[in-house]
């Protein structure tokens, strides 16, 4: 049970939040605009995984892993607020960009203090923040037009492949948290299959995107994830747009879901392959 707890607990928490907020027992008349449970479920699952795997994060946070865990709390609150009170202001570009800059600074504080100087700080933080904001908008737009199981399935596939990639890159603890995030998305897949029409729009991506992005940044900047792999993992969610082409959009639901899962998995699998290859070349397995 101990081995499975970091998977089962986040999955259970996410499932409970999604089930209650969506009132999934009705199975009909589901609100296509999503519910507050998406953000809460994903953020709570992430925090629970951190507690089970790495212990309760200290407050105030002293390291990037703890910062990331505690960020789940305001991200959940922002996601809930976005759903309940509309949140047009929150969805605005400048707001997202400012939040992305703050997120990257808090997460990469050690690199800023120890390794980067002058313009390098502005360059790194600026580029990373723009990429995060772009990914936020991209996945929120996709969540809005893709209700049902296919969207959370794509995210679950991304997190599973990323978990393997992080582990091969020497950051097994980050990989385990990514697996927990996959389990949370997996809960949404099961619920959406059972009650078609469930949607992750309206706040869920407010929590998911920075938390997943944070795992990639941690594995790259503090672990040994190669630049190619990091780039591929961050680019993978954008591949979902290819699934919106006419010929895929009007395919049968199961076919369309598989295509989307394959599209997001492809770049992530290349990243996994890169990490596997660089590890397999080493003659010093231990």
């Amino acid at each position, binding site marked *: 049970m101990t081995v499975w707890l970091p998977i089962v607990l986040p999955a259970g928490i996410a499932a409970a939040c999604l089930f209650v907020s969506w009132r999934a027992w009705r199975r009909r008349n589901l609100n296509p605009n999503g519910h507050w449970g998406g953000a809460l479920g994903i953020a709570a699952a992430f925090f629970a995984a951190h507690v089970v795997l*790495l*212990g309760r994060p*200290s407050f105030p946070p002293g390291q*990037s892993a703890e910062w990331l865990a505690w960020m789940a709390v305001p991200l959940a609150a922002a996601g809930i607020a976005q759903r309940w009170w509309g949140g047009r202001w929150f969805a605005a570009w400048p707001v997202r960009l400012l939040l992305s800059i703050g997120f990257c600074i808090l997460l990469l504080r050690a*690199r800023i203090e120890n390794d980067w100087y002058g313009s390098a700080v502005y360059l790194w933080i600026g580029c990373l923040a723009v990429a995060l904001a772009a990914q936020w908008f991209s996945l929120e737009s996709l969540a809005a037009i893709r209700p049902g199981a296919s969207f959370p399935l794509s995210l679950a596939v991304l997190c599973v492949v990323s978990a393997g990639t992080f582990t091969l890159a*020497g950051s097994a*603890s980050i990989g385990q948290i990514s697996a927990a995030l996959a389990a949370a998305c997996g809960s949404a897949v099961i619920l959406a299959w059972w009650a078609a029409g469930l949607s992750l729009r309206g706040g869920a991506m407010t929590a998911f995107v920075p938390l997943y992005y944070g795992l990639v940044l941690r594995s790259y900047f503090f*672990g040994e994830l190669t630049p190619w792999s990091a780039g591929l993992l961050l680019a993978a969610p954008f591949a979902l747009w290819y699934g919106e082409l006419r010929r895929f959009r009007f395919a049968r639901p199961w076919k369309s879901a598989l295509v989307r899962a394959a599209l997001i998995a492809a770049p992530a699998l290349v990243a996994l392959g890169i990490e596997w290859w660089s590890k397999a070349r080493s003659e010093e397995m231990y």
Partner: protein
Amino acid sequence: MKFVQAVFGTAAMVLASASAFGADFNVDAVHSSAIFKVKHMGASYTYGRFNEIAGQISFDPSKPEASSVQVTIQAESVDTHNEMRDRHLRGPDFFDTKEHPTLSFKSTAWKKTGDRTYDVTGEITMRGKSKTITVPVEHVGDGKDPRGRELTGFHTAFRVDRSEFGIVYGLPDGAGKDVDIILSIEAIKK
């Protein structure tokens, strides 16, 4: 005249010995070691070391409570005779060296317990987390190197629970929770 020389000679010797009693030293990285061992899969011990040590010691055997020690180790210099394992140890699963480049010990109190032994209480910091511990320290001896520099040496062996510092990867069976550390320090008088 001989009497005056004798008086001044004796006074000089007394002053010299007095300065030897209360003196400041720099840790000599070449002749100092930080070694650790940890259980692997419950079957055996794996040994490792840190290759970069620095620090200062202020030692006064006549007044040990006034002594102090501060040792800093570069976490990046971890060496377990396997490059892949060393890279893993430097990463986020263990020492997280890019975020926490150093491990350190800074004494807060010295207490004499025997002829050349002391209990030194201080703050050990690993992976950004600090804990207060008391370690038994042996003052190994004093000496002079070929260049005439005065040396002093200390040795300590103690155990830490790595989970208290947030290093929980591989627990409970992969790599043991208890890490036995040996610090053998040689220091050169400033």
